[in-house]
């Protein structure tokens, strides 16, 4: 089936976007990305270690494999740092695609929505394709869309917490409120969490720790690939209504022993 996810001018076959951090080694990173089936992967912008310069071998691999790179501003706590980081990312990546992440505090890693809105306003003006990490607040999501974001990325739970979809109601409201793609970013812990996000009508899921931190990252990457597809298909298939009582799935008539068969 052709059910591509369109973000700005980018078209993704897979609705699973994965991070490239926290893996045991380069090989595990490559294998997990491969197993996840992701087209788009996030990368961070960091200072070159001047005591041991030289390109990161992972980046060569990602480019060669044709992954779409989504640079993030992880670690930034001000709009200014995020904007500077995005400009450096564009200089590095040629593409203007960026994940804007302006953090509010190091304990929750929740976004600072005020700073995020400021950074987004500047970056959109400079022609970036902006994907902002945000809270699950529908009003903020709408502001981000109105500013010109190519998608909104509400969190499901704190980054790396694995708590899953803590507030499906807000995600559903966001999905009903904005018309750009809604990517659930952060908080997914296991496969069913990703499936639930997609069943709510979200357009994609972004994760890193849930895969990299699993006992078997490769296997979890595969599980997440399947779960995102499962959730998407279930959403499109139109689930049955919930009811408190039962409805039989075998014919009622013709049971043996009954008087009138």
């Amino acid at each position, binding site marked *: 089936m052709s059910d591509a996810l369109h973000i700005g001018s980018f078209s993704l076959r897979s609705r699973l976007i*994965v*991070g*490239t*951090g*926290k*893996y045991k080694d380069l090989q595990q*990173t490559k294998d997990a990305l491969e197993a996840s089936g992701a087209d788009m992967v*996030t*990368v*961070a*912008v*960091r*200072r*070159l270690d*001047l005591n041991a*310069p*030289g*390109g*990161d071998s*992972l*980046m*060569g691999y990602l480019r060669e494999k044709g992954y779409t*790179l989504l*640079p*993030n501003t*992880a670690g930034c706590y001000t709009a200014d740092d995020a904007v*500077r980081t995005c*400009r*450096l*990312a564009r*200089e*590095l*990546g040629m593409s203007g695609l960026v994940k804007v992440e302006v953090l509010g505090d190091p304990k929750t890693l929740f976004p600072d929505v005020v700073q995020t809105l400021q950074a987004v306003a500047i970056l959109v003006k400079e022609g970036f394709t902006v994907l902002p990490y945000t809270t699950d607040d529908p009003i903020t999501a709408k502001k981000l869309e109105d500013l010109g974001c190519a998608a909104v990325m509400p969190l499901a739970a704190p*980054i790396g917490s694995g708590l899953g979809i803590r507030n499906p109601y807000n995600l559903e409201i966001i999905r009903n409120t904005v018309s750009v793609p809604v990517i659930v970013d952060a908080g997914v812990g296991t496969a069913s969490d990703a499936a639930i996000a997609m069943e709510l009508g979200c357009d994609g899921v972004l*994760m*890193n*720790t849930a895969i*990299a931190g699993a006992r078997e990252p490769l296997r979890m990457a595969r599980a997440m690939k399947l779960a995102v597809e499962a959730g998407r298909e279930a959403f499109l298939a139109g689930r049955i209504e919930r009811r408190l009582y039962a409805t039989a799935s075998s014919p009622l008539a013709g049971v043996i022993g009954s008087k009138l068969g």
Partner: protein
Amino acid sequence: MRIEVNGEPHEIAPETTVFALLRTLGVGDGPVAVERNHEIVPRAEHASTLVHEGDRLEVVHFVGGG
């Protein structure tokens, strides 16, 4: 001539270009991006851009992250 690179102090000769600086820093030709005093220095201008006394530079690249 004192400058700052990636938050650390550096001593360089006058008339040094960004391009030359990267070389002296031993930066390979892996893709790096340079910011000087909060302004990007496009790759095309590395060779023609002089570093000045007290400049603050950021030399960055992509690494794995989520």
